[in-house]
């Protein structure tokens, strides 16, 4: 197989502020009817003294085609899973974002609905939210849920607030100050716990990547509020001791939080609720195929066991006799976590995805995601310079973490360089340097939507990079050269003397 000679577009595109000429407009504002003009006074005369804008906003003056071309040019200097080749970004589950989901999510009967509309007028929206919720509970094995969180981290924050409310009600919040988190956890876990007022306690991983039970026993106690865990963990390994972990935490009165970032491995195979978790968040933008949008919007619904249901945010969607309504009746609620009902348009895409696969298809999706990742791991683990640390002989789940530390020692080529060289072949880089416990980590998650040919192309590229690293390392170190720009100065972007965060400051820089 020959690798592609990829070339990303480079339009040398100016900033939108550098385009345009005075007087141009890109949009015609609908005018006032003459009768209406006659009926009201000049509005600028009515604005209170001192509150009228006197200096116009310094926005660009561009016509419609200039705006359109500008942003299309910029889109061509970007890389998406639907437009790219393979996007094996570990922990991010970059699966195909189905087109039909976008079509349905553009239906005016969802886009043009105001969140404060009368329940009777939005039965369609409430119905799909209710059904999505039911599917979510089925897949996770939980008993009640909130769809309000707008992202995974947002769901985590809500989850920790629920832990807080639970202990507060039992009069134990003063003593239960600690959340236990494995050292392989996502960075959001400790950040969320601390944001909700807890201290974090780290527990180490053992050689197979699982939680060290002895270490766990030594840190739990009356001060423990709960434990946050993702299973399969960030090494892509399923922790077989999960029920023992849950027992240890439950015995001392703590709660179990499931970070659903890795749920894509186990749909229909096992459920967080059955593993002993009390709280779950799921990233709809990972497992349920909704697009990441360049960094958002996502959605991070949270499921709970019955013991936490009273604390869920309001409102929730309830149904009786086929009529749906929003219920605000949860006296012990933690309140609201989002201004409205969460990212409803994103939820529609998750709903349509669920229906497109059905129960059977969701299971097959998980199975194939695991098959794809093991296929890559098996083909690459013995290639010169790479290794598959932790969990010797164990199958991986939906992702596998390779280490390039041997290559680094022997050739000076680092995980970073490997990822940049992949870009030159038109392949997106894996997640690098995560989890922190693996040196020179390359975290690879192909997902189930990649055809065998794409997996082979990725494997071929990784082999080629290994060959180059040992024969002509410079060739790897200078990558990327086929992308819109080459390596950039990231220090400059943050240095106090050179930092520039807006066009306004750019204009003031001594250039």
């Amino acid at each position, binding site marked *: 197989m020959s690798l592609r000679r990829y070339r990303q577009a480079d339009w040398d595109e100016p900033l939108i502020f550098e385009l345009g000429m005075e007087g141009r407009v890109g949009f015609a504002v609908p005018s006032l009817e003459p009768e209406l003009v006659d009926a009201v006074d000049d509005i600028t005369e009515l604005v209170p003294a001192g509150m009228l804008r006197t200096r116009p906003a310094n926005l660009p003056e561009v016509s419609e085609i200039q705006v359109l071309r500008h942003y299309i040019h910029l889109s061509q200097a970007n890389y998406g899973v639907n437009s790219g080749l393979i996007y094996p970004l570990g922990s991010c589950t970059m699966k195909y974002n189905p087109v039909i989901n976008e079509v349905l999510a553009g239906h005016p009967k969802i886009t043009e609905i105001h969140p404060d509309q009368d329940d009777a007028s939005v039965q369609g929206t409430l119905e799909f939210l209710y059904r999505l919720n039911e599917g979510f509970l089925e897949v996770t094995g939980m008993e009640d849920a909130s769809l309000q969180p707008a992202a995974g981290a947002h769901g985590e924050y809500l989850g920790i607030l629920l832990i807080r409310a639970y202990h507060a009600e039992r009069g134990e919040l003063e003593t239960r100050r600690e959340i236990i988190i494995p050292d392989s956890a996502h960075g959001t876990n400790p950040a969320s716990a601390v944001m909700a007022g807890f201290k974090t306690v780290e527990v180490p991983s053992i050689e197979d990547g699982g939680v060290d039970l002895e270490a766990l026993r030594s840190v739990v106690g009356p001060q423990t509020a709960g434990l946050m865990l993702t299973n399969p963990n960030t090494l892509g390994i399923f922790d077989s001791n999960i029920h023992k972990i849950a027992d240890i935490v439950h015995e001392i009165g703590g709660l179990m939080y499931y970070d659903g970032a890795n749920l894509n491995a186990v749909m229909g195979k096992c459920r967080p609720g059955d593993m002993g978790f009390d709280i779950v968040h799921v990233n709809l933008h990972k497992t349920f195929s909704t697009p990441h*949008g360049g960094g958002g919007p996502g959605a991070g619904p949270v499921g709970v066991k019955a013991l936490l249901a009273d604390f869920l945010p309001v409102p929730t969607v309830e149904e009786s006799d086929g009529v749906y309504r929003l219920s605000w009746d949860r006296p012990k609620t933690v309140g609201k976590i989002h201004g409205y009902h969460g990212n409803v348009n994103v939820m529609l895409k998750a709903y349509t995805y669920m229906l497109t696969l059905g129960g059977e298809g969701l299971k097959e999706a998980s199975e194939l995601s695991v098959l794809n990742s093991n296929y890559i791991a098996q083909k690459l683990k013995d290639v010169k310079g790479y290794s598959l640390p932790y969990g010797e002989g164990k199958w991986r789940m939906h992702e596998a973490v390779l280490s390039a530390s041997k290559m680094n020692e022997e050739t000076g080529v680092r995980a970073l360089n490997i990822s940049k060289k992949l870009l030159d072949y038109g392949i997106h880089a894996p997640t690098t340097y995560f989890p922190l416990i693996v040196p020179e980590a390359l975290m690879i998650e192909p997902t189930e939507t990649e055809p065998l040919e794409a997996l082979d192309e990725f494997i071929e590229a990784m082999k080629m990079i290994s060959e180059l690293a040992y024969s002509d390392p410079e060739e790897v170190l200078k990558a990327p050269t086929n992308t819109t720009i080459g390596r950039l100065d990231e220090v400059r972007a943050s240095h106090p003397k050179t*930092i520039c965060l807006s066009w306004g400051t750019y204009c003031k820089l001594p250039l």
Partner: protein
Amino acid sequence: MSKPHPYLPNSVPEIKERMMEEIGISSIDELYSDIPDKLKFRGELDVPGPYSEAELKNEVSGTLEKNWGLRCPPFLGGGVWPHYVPAVVDEIVSRAEFLTSYTPYQPEITQGMLQSIFEYQSLVCELLGMEVSNASVYDWATGLGEAARMASRLTRKTTILFSTLISPNRLSVMKAYTEPAGITTVQVDYDKTTGQLDLEDLKEKMDDKTAAVYIENPSYLGFVEEGVEAIAEVAHDSKALFIVGVDPISLGLLKPPGEYDADIVIGEGQPLGNHMNYGGPLLGLFACRNEPKMIRQMPGRIIGLTETLEGSKRAFAMALQTREQHIRREKATSNICSNQALCALASAVYLSLMGPKGIRELAEVVASRARYAMRRIGELPGVRAPVFNSFHFKEFTVKFRTKSVNEAHLGLLDRSIHGGKSLVKEFPELEETALYCVTEMHTKRDIDRLVSVLGEVLEG
């Protein structure tokens, strides 16, 4: 599954078997051998499907069609508003290269999104009159929560004073963000005639624990807060910050908070090119002054301008990542690890299309239509609009003396018109009052019809 699925290219039995053979297994379940038997899920998940695309389209459109068609956009605002979204905006945000990309962690191959977000930050700064904006947060409400925490970190003080007439939903979210951090929130009275913040009450409540004063402008009830310079002064005299929440459309017409000494400006970016979508996704605007101390305490992602290592070509990258959770873990300024990138992109396109004249014209059109509606409704017998004697932008209160808010609402709904939001539960002291909103989407005919139907309902 009985046949290959279009989303699952390796679900073809021969391909699957070939792959299994390559890695030396005879059944997929071998890969799941680490899951203890007693934890394995038996049987099939009870999830409907699989649907073919044609079936899906029928099924889901059928569900959505149950939402009522209204004669014109609802007269609802309060934090999400029916504004027109230009076609170019939807065209750009549906480009697969943007839509289906991840966070731009590999800047060389994602300059498009990085530059777009830099432009978004810059455009928002120009509109708000501020110097630094982040790449956005989830929505206005969570932005308020983050702003309150940021103010507390910066001042090392623990009380937030807020105007009583802010949105109760946003207040609830602020509390969910502040209480765990040991921050208390205290409300400041308003003038019963004008709705304006009671400056004397504010002065009385300021003390050495006050981290910030928060107002919304225009207020949740639609009137413009006029004493902003005085409020800023009171806050700053006590070394507290001044946080202002805005509807960005209003800033075509109104003085931007940057010109009245706001330290942190937040707001809802939805009206800048994003559809209402039953309240999400939204776009949390978040900006502050250009002070290194403040910027370092800002939550969320920020894109900065830099250059390439070779050739010094202009380039964009994530800046100041050492504040963020993936580097700082438990010491991060916030746990947020995304932004509403696609919504921010929509707003960048929207503001570029509008330009300085467009945004001014739009704000004038909106305010004029609202003024017309407010006057016509206020002329109806048994109705007072607005409740407060102040200048209103696009939302205004309507108080019913002879009927309940709900009776008026149901009467309108019967005729496929959606009236304003009831404030009966949120602000009982205002009695039978609703919050109406008018935008450029409401024609004179729509407004006249609203007024005439409302008249009939009130007579009936």
